[in-house]
């Protein structure tokens, strides 16, 4: 089995593993991290696809991954902030009711 096949298989496994955790877990932070792991799996598959044993690597998937990393960071920041806002609203409401 070549290195390329190994990395492709591991990337796909990582994607489904992250997706499974994201679907089943209830904690928001773990959900966000799980989606990030799924995204990392996708990037790994793309990078493995770019490799070729005889010719130089394909730059197009590399550029896509570079773009994807920044966009996934933006999406993560948004998701974490939304999750924190939800939690803060819940806690704040509960505390006010108790007082």
């Amino acid at each position, binding site marked *: 089995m070549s290195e390329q*096949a190994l990395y492709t298989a591991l990337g796909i496994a990582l994607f489904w593993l992250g997706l499974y955790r994201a679907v089943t877990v209830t904690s928001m932070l773990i959900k966000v991290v799980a989606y990030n792991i799924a995204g990392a799996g996708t990037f790994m*598959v793309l990078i493995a696809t770019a490799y070729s044993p005889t010719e130089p690597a*394909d*730059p*197009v998937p590399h550029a896509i991954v570079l773009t994807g990393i*920044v966009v996934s960071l*933006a999406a993560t920041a948004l998701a974490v*902030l*939304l999750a*924190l806002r939800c939690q803060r609203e819940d806690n704040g409401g509960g505390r006010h009711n108790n007082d």
Partner: protein
Amino acid sequence: MIPTGAIRKKTAHLKNRVIAAGFTGFCLFSIIVALSTQPIHPARDLVYSMLNQSGVENPVTAVLLNFRGVDTLLELVAIYVVLVTVSALSFNRLDSIRCVHSDTVLRGLTNIVAPVTFVIAIYLLYNGTRLPGGAFQAGALLAALLGLIAFSGHHHLAQERVLSRIGMVSGLVVFSLTGLSVYSDAQSFLTYPPVYATSLILTIEIVATVSIALTLGRYISALPQSQVSL
């Protein structure tokens, strides 16, 4: 009689197992499909044959900022749209970050790390035309530095509201204006003439680095500093 909580727990457990079995099946199926097909590279030869006209030596930078410049422009739009939402949801104001965990160790570490990170970011940016590196790597590194500086209680130039906002939109504005300025005599949007390509790409990269660093740094400094338990 079995309590309903136990039944619900058991059903949830069973549901998770069914999902896990389904996902394992999908996973094996996609691995088999992926490994039985050979990846094709339809655009690689095109990129390498046009590389000498792109103005840069690194093929990834050529794809990002010349051949598929529209994608990078749209990416800057995407992080800017997220920035607007993040600013609305932010826990800290940009110009007055209340520093909860300000301690001597963090401050000392920041004092040592900041200049080194700055130099490495400049090196990465400068490298982008020849070797792996460029605006995104340098921008991400500087953004991490901005987050560290903000949470260590130091004040820096990027916390000036007007300056920071100008920096954040500058990448988008300069990129669009460059694209429009070459939008003449039967050239399409963002098609640089090969003579000016290197200087245009370098200008865009420098401005995009500032823009990405400030925007991503704002994402980090928007997070609360205490009582985080999700």
